[in-house]
């Protein structure tokens, strides 16, 4: 069916391409999460554009317009440096992370840049410990299509969980 009939059929308030867009973002986020939770963290930078900016930001800083981030990776290089640190230099205990990404919202598109949001929760399981909530918050995203592939031009993880339990080793 095309968007119009969809709308008449269901009163759908969204054009079909917005649907497809959200579906692409859903698939992107699922792959993104799987890369961190079960995959190879070294591939994580591939979800971003060359000039991407990735930040993990305490909500209080964001709300008070304070510029400090907890993670501030500039460009593909900055993302790669983070993965190198995680795998080569950081002396951290092993742990499992699991991402839950929901409530994806496509906010709009300007000149090929898609603004979107989502709620995320990351739960952490340390060896011999019960699973706990590591971080809950919101993604503020900017996506672009490189060919048929979505890439993140920006991902800001604004976290409600301002008191971080111990250490953030892997990205949100």
């Amino acid at each position, binding site marked *: 069916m095309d968007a119009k009939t969809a709308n008449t059929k269901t009163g759908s308030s969204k054009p079909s391409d917005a649907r497809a867009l959200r579906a692409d973002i859903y698939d992107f986020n699922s792959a993104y999460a799987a890369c961190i939770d079960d995959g190879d963290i070294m591939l994580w930078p591939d979800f971003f554009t060359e000039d991407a900016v990735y930040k993990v930001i305490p909500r209080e800083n964001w709300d008070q317009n304070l510029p400090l981030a907890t993670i501030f990776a500039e460009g593909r290089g900055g993302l790669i440096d983070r993965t190198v640190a995680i795998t080569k230099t*950081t002396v951290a205990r092993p742990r499992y992370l699991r991402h839950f990404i929901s409530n994806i919202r496509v906010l709009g598109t300007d000149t090929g840049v898609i603004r979107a949001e989502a709620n995320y929760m990351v739960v952490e399981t340390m060896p011999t410990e019960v699973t706990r909530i590591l971080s809950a918050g919101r993604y503020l995203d900017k996506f672009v299509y490189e060919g048929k592939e979505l890439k993140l031009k920006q991902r800001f993880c604004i976290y409600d969980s301002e008191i971080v339990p111990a*250490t953030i080793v892997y990205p949100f």
Partner: protein
Amino acid sequence: MATQLKNSPLNFTWPEEGFTRVPYWVYTAPEIYAREQEVVFGGSAYSFIGFECEIPNTGDFRATKVGSKPVIYTRDETGQVRVFANRCAHRGVQFCYETHGKGKTEFICPYHQWTYNLHGETIAIPFRRGLKKQGGMPKDFDMKQHRLQELKVATYNGTIFASFDHGMPSFEEYLGPKMLHWVNRVFNGRPLKVLGYQRQRLRSNWKLMFENIKDPYHASLMHVFLVSFSLFRADNPSKVQLDGTGLHGVQISQRGEQKHDEGTEDIRQNIAHLKLANPNMLQPEKEYPGEATVVMQTIWPNLIIQQQSNTLAMRQIQTVSPQEFELHWTYFGYADESEEMTMKRLRQANLMGPAGFVSADDSEVMEATQFGVANYPEAKAVVEMGGRDFEDTDHMVTESMIRGFYSGYRKIMGL
């Protein structure tokens, strides 16, 4: 934790070796923790509270803690900084719900609206005189006797410290000239600005945080990132200084070249070839006189002043329970600095905090220490690197500051 009675003896015996040993019950016992709240954080010490620039105007305020004790800091109409227990004089409500705010002319407890001016004095008690001649407070009730508990405040070049002991000497006297020298380096009177906050909770006793930062020995070994980029190396020129009590201390060091030699041969994980894909994260700019590029100063009982290259932060320790503490990071710069310098600080902040390329190692190892010691109360740490006494050194290969810390700690705790 409220069960510790003043002056009751603690049934613990410190190892006979003295401060070259740390018995592991000191990290877990509820009685120890309760006593610390009483005589360390509640006692004769200046705890770090915050910055003046966080509360620039009359009626600005922020909430924080001294140990486990909730307090607020605010600025009164005369411009003076005030610190009060966040505990209503009436029936104890943590009356200030917000973590920060501005424009207060008074603090009103939500429960019965007892009202306090910015001096902490009780200025209004609803129905104090009763209503329609009924009820109210006793005629002889003296509001002056029932005010917010105020702490003695010391402000120093933009920083705020406070103590529950109003008999404290001046902050300058408390620190002494040797320690003050290093405080002056960063806090030189230049107006400050806060760049943001980071907070983390560790399942670890608070003293392990001080052991960690008073321990230059580990930095050159555990922090592969630091070492690989030669931001800190045992063989870089460096020194350690303590005050007479041993409670305050400072380690001073300077950046070196990336290299592989004696300084690193002992460091198995040194990765001499490590390169940054985005080097702008690490392009420090000299901003202080002298060669030192890293100055980590510990001020009893709750503060670490961090200057690593261009990243400046106050690390405030808050206690949660015998086996938990929180680290509250306030990153700052100077109000009049260039945007470029601010950006350098924000980029170098990747080294520090809960996700720091360097600090993540520390938070992990502090919890690993707690888990290692918590169930072996009969065992003890051996702290003999650099000797069995505590003194200043011209090198980093020492645990001198840890020995100093426990020397002072034992006196205060009566252990």
